[in-house]
């Protein structure tokens, strides 16, 4: 991008303005909570959160300097890395709960579906939010673990919000859904037949906060402060689920009822490197990185 970044943090006297591109989903609750709790302002960061629909808009925003930081799922970041997009993870984002059947995302089928386990998905139509990404990779792994053959699965791209309807109307046989849609599916009588995150790795890291390498090089102080603030937020969120559920109402429209019942992700402060290596290996096998393989050393902080 031609536009020059707004030189955040250079002004030593006042707080530096920091814009973060996030997706309005449960995963980013800690940063909203942290903002509310003053974890950022106490470090001289005047935080602004801008919601976008997905990585497609956030990554260019980070590269152009419009956002200083962004939130993205790990596989997308790995893909970016293989394409030499100059970004690097600065803090953990969200992680699987690691409890099979009680994760914040999973593979669900509709009421009365004949499919009862991941093995039954072979040859079926399965919805994921984005093809060639974390969804299909992990679902395949679930199927493998259950002894099925993932080769014949027909993945269909459907946005999370549209999955409950697609599932119920039988347009797909199964869907990989996350909260809050997971709750909606369950409410409509659907059942979770596999927890693809936990099947892939224990405590799989799903998403992370990242920044452009230029910012990391030019303003280490700011990045350090941001990382600390995020980490404090993550830890606080993990410890105070009720406050997390409360803060959800400030930036989402998830109904009260669902908010109190939905399964929250885990928010460890450390990126689980081993799980990422697994994810990278799976992705490479599935060919989602093309011919390349991600170099995690260049991606992780």
């Amino acid at each position, binding site marked *: 991008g031609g536009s020059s970044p707004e030189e955040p943090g250079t002004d030593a006297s006042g707080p530096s303005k920091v814009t973060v591109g996030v997706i309005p989903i449960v995963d980013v609750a800690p940063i909203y909570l942290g903002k509310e709790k003053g974890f950022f302002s106490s470090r001289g960061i005047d935080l602004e959160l801008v919601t976008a629909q997905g990585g*497609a808009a956030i990554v260019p925003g980070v590269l152009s300097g419009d956002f200083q930081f962004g939130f993205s799922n790990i596989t997308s970041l790995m893909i*970016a890395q293989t*394409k030499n*997009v100059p970004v690097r993870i600065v803090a953990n984002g969200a992680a699987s709960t690691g409890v099979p059947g009680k994760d914040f995302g999973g593979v669900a089928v509709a009421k009365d579906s004949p499919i009862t386990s991941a093995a039954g998905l072979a040859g079926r139509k399965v919805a994921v939010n984005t093809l060639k990404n974390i969804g299909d990779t992990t679902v395949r792994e679930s199927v493998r673990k259950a002894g099925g053959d993932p080769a014949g699965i027909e993945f*269909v791209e459907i*946005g999370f919000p549209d999955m409950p309807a697609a599932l119920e109307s039988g*347009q*797909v046989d199964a869907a990989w859904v996350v909260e809050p849609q997971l709750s909606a599916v369950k409410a409509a009588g659907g059942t979770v037949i596999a927890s693809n995150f936990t099947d892939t790795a224990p405590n799989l890291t799903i998403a992370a906060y990242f920044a452009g390498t230029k910012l990391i090089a030019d303003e280490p102080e700011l990045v350090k402060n941001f990382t600390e603030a995020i980490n404090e937020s993550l830890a606080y969120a993990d410890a105070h689920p009720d406050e997390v559920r409360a803060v959800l109402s400030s930036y989402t429209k998830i109904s009260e009822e669902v908010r109190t019942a939905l399964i929250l992700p885990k928010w460890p402060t450390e990126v689980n490197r081993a799980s990422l290596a697994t994810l990278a290996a799976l992705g490479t096998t599935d060919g989602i990185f093309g011919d390349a393989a991600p170099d995690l050393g260049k991606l992780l902080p």
Partner: protein
Amino acid sequence: MRIVYWLGLPIVLVVAWWVATAGSTDFYVPPLQSIVAVFFDVWTLDRLRADVLPSLLRLLAGFALALLLGVGLGVLIGSRPRVRATVEPVLEFLRAVPPPVLVPVIMLFAGIGDGMKILVIVSGCVWPILLNTVEGVRAVDGVLTETARAYGLTGPARLWRLTLPAASPQIVAGARQALSLAIILMVISEMFAASSGLGYTIVEFQRSFAIPEMWTGIILLGLLGVVLSGLFRLAETAILGWYHGLRRAQKG
């Protein structure tokens, strides 16, 4: 001479693009050279057959359907002021709903197959045809209308021999608009529940940070637009020969 006209400006623009991006280090705006370099690697015959052809067929199906629907409804609405007054607000309502939020609703009714994608194309590109047909029908010359009435031209004969030809210049204008919209909507429709197709491929390139490849897709869309509009021009010349003659009549 024609060729010079057709190629003149594009060549200038391409050269300008080439020069302007020659040393570009911007991740999202790669040098044109590197875009061109990957073009033929990306758009192999196989890929054209697997991704572009189905898209194209859906596009044509959607366009044809929109044409039918737009002209049919347009004639009805345009020739009856009361019908127009009744349905116009509803149509305007539907028209203002953005396709990306409309698609999920369409999916409720039409599933996620080709039918849905064609419907999405129709839902977007029917409007210019409809509006132009309505206005074209309303604007049929009063003397011609009276002539037709005096000679007992009613029913289908009136439709085929008066209303449609008289409104055809404006209908064609609408169809021309719709054609490019159809291409755009083809892309949008493939952002939902797709795993192949030209639009999907472009989005997929974009998501996987294959930026030069994404640009080749955009260029292909443009080229597709040029080819389709060339075909359209042929059809237009055939249908509106009289009109072009009439409008040029006294120009020498």
